[in-house]
């Protein structure tokens, strides 16, 4: 069953096309990552799905409702984590969560939400005094306080250090395990790799790829680079059959191959190839 279904979505600003006949589907329980350069139309698309923006053309259904005609009942079923927010600075974590929980029919308690995102120690702290990572986790807590079926995450880890990002991924994976459907936009390829079941790449308002992270840009079928060290000289070979190459090297060295590395095209490389091809066209 599709939670999000988009057909031929079009939106332009002052005659400039921001989203150009986009199709998109997110199945129930799936995490879909939307990737693309700045200005590719990601946020416009997400904000149309969230019911914030109108569209010029196309058919859109989110939880079986057209977001252009949503009511507050529909909002009970979704959670939104905005791209950046610096509101609520004078409230404490616990106050804000408790207040927002009152908007929903079947909310999580403030305690449960702080526990889920690991802010129990900061519960009585002013939101304005939280670190960037803590603030973002609070945004997620506010996004899931109403137990949404569908969660929108717009660039949730921008500005995180690597450790904070990993902690955050653990949190999102816990939500996934609970069966929440997630639509994630991100700039970080490794984030898409860690969280997404499917990735959609958007460039210039058009979809240029819609696949799994492993298959993006054909990186599962592309040649693999095998590198090794032969008496102090770096050697490498591109091959479709890396196992055979390694076998040959093992025979050649009579055992351990010095400095052996087998490298597939990274997700980032596959992504950049796709986007550059689109930008050049």
């Amino acid at each position: 069953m599709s939670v999000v279904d988009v057909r031929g979505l079009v939106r332009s600003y002052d005659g400039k096309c921001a989203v150009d006949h986009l199709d998109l589907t997110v199945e129930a329980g799936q995490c879909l990552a939307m990737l693309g350069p700045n200005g590719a139309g990601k946020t416009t698309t997400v904000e149309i799905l969230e019911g914030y923006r109108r569209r010029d053309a196309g058919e859109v259904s989110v939880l079986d409702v057209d977001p252009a005609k949503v009511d507050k009942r529909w909002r009970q079923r979704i959670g939104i984590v905005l791209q950046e927010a610096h509101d609520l600075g004078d409230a404490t974590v616990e106050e804000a969560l408790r207040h927002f929980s009152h908007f929903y029919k079947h909310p999580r308690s403030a305690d449960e939400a702080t526990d889920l995102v690991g802010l129990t120690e900061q519960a009585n702290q002013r939101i304005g005094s939280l670190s960037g990572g803590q603030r973002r986790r609070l945004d997620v807590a506010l996004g899931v306080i109403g137990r949404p079926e569908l969660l929108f995450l717009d660039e949730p880890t921008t500005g995180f250090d690597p450790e904070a990002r990993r902690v955050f991924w653990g949190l999102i994976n816990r939500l996934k395990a609970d069966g929440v459907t997630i639509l994630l936009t991100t700039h970080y390829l490794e984030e898409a790799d860690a969280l997404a079941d499917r990735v959609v790449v958007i460039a210039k308002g058009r979809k240029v790829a819609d696949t799994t992270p492993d298959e993006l840009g054909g990186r599962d079928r592309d040649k693999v680079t095998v590198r090794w060290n032969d008496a102090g000289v770096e050697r490498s070979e591109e091959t479709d059959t890396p196992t055979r190459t390694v076998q040959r090297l093992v025979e050649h060295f009579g055992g351990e191959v010095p400095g052996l590395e087998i490298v597939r095209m990274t997700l980032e490389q596959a992504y950049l190839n796709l986007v550059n091809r689109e930008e050049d066209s």
Partner: protein
Amino acid sequence: MNYLRLCVDRSRFEIRVTLRDKNAVFFMMLLPIFLLVIFGSVLSSNKIGSTNVSYSQYIVAGLLASGILYSSFQQLAIAIPEERVSGALKRLAGSPMPSSVYFIGKFAVALFVYIFQAIFLLAIGHFAYHITLPTSLGPWLTFLWVSLLGLATSALLGIAFSSLPKDGKSAGALTTPIVLFFQFTSGVYFIYTGLPKWMQGIAALFPLKWMAQALRGVFLPKYFARAEVAHSFEFPKAALVMFAWALIGAVLCSRTFRWLEKT
């Protein structure tokens, strides 16, 4: 949570958070008292015309009317653009909270701030500057309806105005001269009847003059009515002008209010 309890919860949340903003507390709540202390100290012994009414007694009504303008119009005209830029409005628009609850919460803050201002102003005025307070129920009932209608009108105009500035900073720069202009032309600091006729004419088109005049009817002796422009405090006309502006404000709000920043 049912609608009413949600309104109460939102109002308490808004008031609590507003009170933590020390600047807001100082300027919004203590400014009228500060002004009374200054004007009252400088001109306390002056009497108005041939009446026995002191200048301090005269400006209490004007300062209360200004308090209505600060706590509702100015407060909302600045706070709402700030919340639009910070993402607070976008977050609420994306939540199931009914939009009306937001406005009720904002009105509750205005009411709370005004009550605080009024109590301090009247208490300090009474004990330190010999302001006489009404001793019968009638004038206090007038005080109640003028304050509530004035707050509702100014709050609606503040919400309507909040669509103009692009952020809180420019909101402050835009509203301060407006508030000052009406204070000086509506009989808040100066005796209204002593102002040039053209100035009176402009002020009479807007609500502050009528709030101040109706509140003078509460805090000045009955005979002072003869010293007003129409030889009366004109309560019905004051109610009508405020109500008309409340309607204009409501129409503007429903047409122009934005939850999101312009793109």
